[in-house]
Structure formats: C-alpha cells, structure tokens
C-alpha cells in the first residue's frame, strides 16, 4: 500500500519523465553534435591530430584564462598574441596562408584548460596552440598535447625541470631568471634571504632551487612562507619578514597577492633601501595595478622590459599601444607570447610544412629579432636562449634595467650545468 496511494503525487514526474529523457537527451546530443566543426578530424584511429589546412587559412589556438582569477594576467597575453597574428597576416601570412586565431577561455580552471586544448586540437584542427600561464594549467594540458602530437607554445617564465617534446617554452627557465637574480643579490652582498611565495608548483619548486643555490653559495634562508593563490591578507607575513631582519626578500607570489603583500610591506615600514624585494612575477602590468608608491626602488628579474633598447622593441611597444590604448604597458610574458608566434612562423617556413613533427625538426637554431633582443631556439630542449635582465622599478611605473647577462643565456631547464643543483631532479 505504501508506495501505491501516497506515492502517486511524488512519482508522477519520474514516471512520465523517462519519456522526456529521450527527447531531451536527443536534443542535447544533436545540439552538441552540431557544435562540432565539420572540418574536425573525425575518426581518431591515427593518433596524431589532423591539421586543418584546407582553404587559404591556417588555424591556431589561443588558450588563455579570460575569466576567473587568472584573467588579470592572461588577457594581456591573449591581446599580445593577437597583435602578432595581425602583423603576420598583414604581411602575407605563413606559407601563403592567413592565420585564423581561435580563442578559448581556460577560465582559470585546470581541467577546463585540458578540455579546451582537446577541442582546439581535435575539433578545430589547429596547427599550434599558444597560451597557458600557471604551471598547473601547463601540467594539465601537457598530456593532451603529447597524446595528440600537437604543439603548445608556452610564453611564461616557469620553474624548469620539464621538457615536453610537444611544448616550446618561450619564457625563461630558472637559469635565465632566478639563478641570475641570485647571482645579482650575491654580488651586492645580500646574503640573508627570506622567501615568500604563492602556494603552488612554481614558487615551491623555485624555492627548492633557491635553497640549493644558497647552500652552495654561503647564503642563508631565514624563512619561507607560502600563501594560497588569491590570498590577500599579508600582515602576518610582513611581520615575520620584518622580524627576520633579512637582507632581501625573494618574492615568487603570483597575481592578486602581490598587491596585498606590497601594501603591507610598506605599512610595516620596510622599504627598498632597508630590505629590497626581488620579484619574478611582477612586470609592468602589475606595477601599474599595485602603484609606484609601494613599489618604487624594488627589483625584478625578467628578460624584457618596456624600456629595453632596440628598434624591434620600439616597434612592438608602438604597435601594441596603437592597438590597445596608450596607457597599456607591455611586459615580459606579453613579449614572449608575441615572439612565440613569430618563432612558430619561422619554424613553419623553414620546414615548409605545418606538420608538428617537421616543425619540431626545423626548430633548432631558429632566430628572431625579438623586442627583448635576438632570441634563438635550442632544438634539443625546445627552450629559447634569452638575455637575463635585472631591473629596478622607477617612480614613473617603468622598470629600468640595472644589470644584464650581456649575451643570451643557454636554456638549462634541469640545471645540469650547475653542480649545486645535482640533487634536484
């Protein structure tokens, strides 16, 4: 009796509902099938992704977070990629084909990055993909690119210890940014360091390397603190840093946290003179959003500044501002992204093919007169020779170079050329 009489009201929906399952599932299924592009690689019995080169265009994917917490940084990279693509199209394209960018939103969510990477490769048939910012997003898409034998150009400085056969790393690896920064601090006699970073892969791995360096070079690490990504409460960390009486702070914070950290740093009475901070994730864009009243005099380590001399940079800065606004600064990740498109173009032209295997084979020794100076691709590691630069943030919001490595540094992602790093990987 129980389920008969009184259950009739509640079970009405499920009963008839099963018919609706059919109707609606069909709708969902057919709709998503319609969403698929007709030129997609249909059956994937052969594992390498098919590249769509039909017609007079070639597609490339732009995979950046346009929403969520990382959008603050990644949108500028997308803009910069688009600038490079426009320039290349204006001068005739690649192998006679115009580049058609397909932009996807990684939404600051790593599984979404993996989903969109698959979509770009399998549905759109892109020849290469440009983007990703955080190491977590790169780690999430790495297997996707490797399984489908498709190329990713990753434009952000990172923690090293990685070499994927299907990723080109156009940002700095550790020996082109962090190691030179440590050398610089050592040369200035700043030997007692405090490490502050966001709680994720890049800062934790970078700090592991910094500690190994410090041990071998007679420097001491007085403390190490991590804050969750997006954390904006830094008064305690500022207190700890202050109490440590370190010579300098090595800062691997990312995103929003930097703003809160530097505001607190100043409130605690610490200055660039009393305890300089070397940052590896603060570029012109971040300087603009934090404010020079908090940052003037602090140090940064990069491979490019808006002030870097040279005709290529003057042209890049002018083109960027003309396209996106006079008040928009250019920064290292934007420059590395811009450069990555040109490097891909040069590789494709040398290989005379969009095929990833041929592009990879042609990559060694490709050079480009980039805004940061001449860069060369190292085919073995698929990283790029880059000039390391230490800069000081000025009161005008620009970063002034105070030291550079003189010539492009050979990329060494596993730090094999450094004896102190032998136990790291």
């Amino acid at each position, binding site marked *: 009796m129980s389920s008969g009489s009184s259950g009739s009201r509640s*079970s009405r929906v499920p009963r008839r509902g*099963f018919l609706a399952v059919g109707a609606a599932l069909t709708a969902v299924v057919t709709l*998503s099938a319609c969403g*698929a592009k007709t030129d997609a690689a249909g059956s994937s019995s052969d594992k390498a992704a098919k590249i769509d080169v039909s017609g007079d265009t070639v597609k490339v994917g732009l995979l950046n977070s346009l929403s969520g917490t990382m959008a603050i940084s990644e949108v500028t990279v997308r803009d910069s990629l688009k600038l490079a693509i426009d320039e290349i199209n204006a001068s005739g394209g690649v192998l006679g084909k115009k580049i058609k960018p397909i932009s996807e*939103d990684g939404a600051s*969510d*790593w*599984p979404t990055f993996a989903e969109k990477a698959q979509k770009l490769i399998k549905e759109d048939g892109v020849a290469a993909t440009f983007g990703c910012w955080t190491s977590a997003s790169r780690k999430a898409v790495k297997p996707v690119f490797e399984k489908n034998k498709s190329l990713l150009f990753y434009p952000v400085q990172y923690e090293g210890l990685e070499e994927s056969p299907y990723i080109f790393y156009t940002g700095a690896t550790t020996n082109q940014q962090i190691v030179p920064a440590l050398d610089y601090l050592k040369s200035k006699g700043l030997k007692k360091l405090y490490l502050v970073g966001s709680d*994720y*892969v890049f800062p934790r791995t970078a700090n592991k390397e910094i500690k190994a360096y410090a041990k071998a070079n007679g420097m001491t690490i007085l403390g190490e603190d991590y804050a969750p990504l997006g954390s904006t409460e830094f008064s305690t960390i500022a207190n700890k840093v202050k109490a440590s009486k370190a010579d300098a702070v090595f800062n691997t914070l990312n995103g929003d946290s930097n703003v809160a950290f530097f505001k607190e740093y100043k409130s605690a009475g610490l200055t660039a003179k009393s305890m300089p901070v070397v940052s590896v994730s603060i570029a012109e864009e971040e300087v603009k959003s934090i404010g020079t009243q908090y940052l003037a005099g602090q140090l940064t380590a990069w491979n490019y500044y808006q002030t870097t001399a040279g005709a290529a940079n003057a042209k890049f800065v002018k083109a960027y501002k003309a396209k996106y606004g006079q008040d928009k600064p250019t920064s290292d990740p934007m420059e590395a992204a811009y450069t990555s498109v040109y490097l891909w173009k040069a590789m494709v032209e040398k290989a005379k093919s969009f095929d990833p295997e041929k592009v990879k084979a042609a990559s060694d020794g490709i050079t480009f007169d980039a805004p940061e100076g001449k860069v060369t691709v190292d085919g073995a590691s698929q990283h790029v020779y880059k000039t390391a630069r230490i800069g000081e943030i000025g009161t005008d919001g620009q970063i002034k170079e105070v030291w550079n490595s003189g010539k492009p540094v050979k990329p060494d992602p596993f730090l094999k050329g450094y004896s102190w790093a032998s136990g790291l990987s």
Partner: protein
Amino acid sequence: MNVLKGRSVRAWAGFAGAAVLLFAIAPLALSDFRLGLLAKYLCTAMVAVGICLAWGRGGLLTLGQGVFFGLGGYAMAMHLKIADAGPGNLPDFMQLYGTATELPWWWKPFENPAFALAATVLLPMAVAALLGLFIFRRRVKGAYFAILSQALAAALAIWLIGQQATTGGTNGLTDIQGFFGYSLDDPVNQRMVYFVIAAALLLLMAIARQLINSRYGELLVAVRDSEERVRFLGYDPANVKLVAYVVAAGMAGLAGALFVPAVGIISPALIGIVPSIEFVIGAAVGGRASLVGAVLGAIAVAWAKTALSEEFPAAWTYFQGLLFIVALAFLPGGLASLAVLVRRRKAVERKTAVIPVGEAA
C-alpha cells in the same frame, strides 16, 4: 495495482529508451572528443542524482558535494597513479616535488585496486556519515548547513594544495595513463570508459528511483515538508536525513572516481566552493525534485558551459549567469516544471503539436 504496473512499464520503457540513446545513438553520432565531453557531463549528472535525493526530496542544502566528488576522485586517481608508476616506483610528481623515497603511509592501501575502488564510494560515505551524525542530531539546518558545507569544501581544497609533495598541490593528479591495465590513450578504451559511466548513471538513477518510491522516500519528503510533524509521529528525522545525505555522498564519490579516467585529471579546482555550487545549479535548473529533471539539468548546464564558452570565449559568463538567474528565479521547479506545464496545457487544449521538451535547455 494496475496503476502501479503501468507506471513501472513506462519506467522500464524510459530506461530502455535512455539506454539506447546512451549506448547506441550517442556513440554513433558524436566524435570521440564530444563523447568524452558527454562522459564528463554524465559524471556531473551522477552527482545530480544524489542532489535530487538529498536536496530535492530531503530539503538538505548540499553545498559541499565537491568534497565527496573530490574524495572519490582522489581515491581513484591515487590508485591509477601508483599503477602507472609500476611496482616499487613513486608516482612521477612525487619524484619531482617530493623528498620521500617511498610511498607515504596513507597512499599505501590505495595500491590495492579493490581497496581503492571500495574507497571511492565508502570514503565519501563515511565522511558524510560522520559529519551528518552531528549536524542532523543538532538540528542544524538551512543556511547554517550550506555555509558549513562550503567551509569544509574550502578547507579540503586548501589542505590538498598545501601538500604538494604528496597530493600534487594545485596541479592535482594529472597525466593518468592507464585504467586497470587498459591504456587510456586508446580511443576504444576511452569509449569503454564512457559506457561504464553511462551504465553507472542509469544504475544510480534506478537506485534513486527505488528509494524515492519506497516508504523511505515518502518519509524523506515528509521530513522536508514538515520536520516537526514527522518527529511528533515518532520518527527520528535525523536518521532519515542522514541516509539521504550519505547516499548522495556515495553517488558523488562514484562520479568523482569515474571522472578521473574520463578526463585524466583530478585537482583541488574540482573540490572548492565554485564546483560545489555548480553541481547544485545543474540539478536546480533541471528541477531538483524530479530525478529526470535533475539529471537532464546537470547535463544541460554542463553542456551549455562548453557550448557558450566555445562560442563566446570572452562573454560567456554573462550568458551563464543569466541562465542561472532566469531558470532559478522564475522557474522554481526548474525546467522539469516546464514539462509539467506543457503537459497540462496539452491535456487541456488537446493539441497534437509536438513540443520539444529538451530544447529549453
């Protein structure tokens, strides 16, 4: 009796129809990539089945389903990572970030596939039972329960992120190669994973339907509608709620476990507050109290997210937000109530025109 019979016949017909769709039509109609996405949507639908039970039927504000989904997912992924590494080796990320030379003690049991599989469901259920036991006895309800669940989701996510050497930190567990000996690289095996997920979803729906139509199901609705009266009748509402909560947690755990081979990644990003809210939204948009509505809603919302973000990468959150607002503020029963409405009008007007039910999604 006849009514009962007719209903179960129709239910079976519905099940059969859904099975044909999921097992025959979808694999034929969709590319491998889209089928993989559908597998992912079906995982969220499995969570929605539990939410329908606990929230739609029991009135519990289940805003922490991400916790259970994540526990199931990590349990499965830990086993698969150990299996990928092979006997005696450490999973790749531990070699990279960790200093340990052997597996941490709390990883060791997951080396055993039977333990890991059982843990994907039992671990979330145990956590839910522990939590629910206190909460429902204390008669915590409504907003308190919702916020408390969110606090728990946030705490688990932050903890996982902090333990990079043993949990992979923000990265989560990525690059999962095999699934009990089958390479996930092979499209045929990916298809198998999809079939497993589809079958699991149908199974969970059958279980939920049985529960809903049972005496317990009626008691659950009674607790939702008037807890005090049920108490005065001599039942203990706390136990009734606890069962629904624990079952929902188990379903979310299973969904998380199957999500791992389908997508190849589990990360704290799937555990925190945002995913927990997204799970609930799918069920709410479809119709929380209707099993079919909740499942279809979850699939539709997940699909809409993909489709909108592919079409409008820079503005899709407007549409997503708008969808939530319109569906929830103006259709309290979700899209399922549209179907009821349509049916009523059809009965009244006796029109023969076919109204596409699913397209409203």
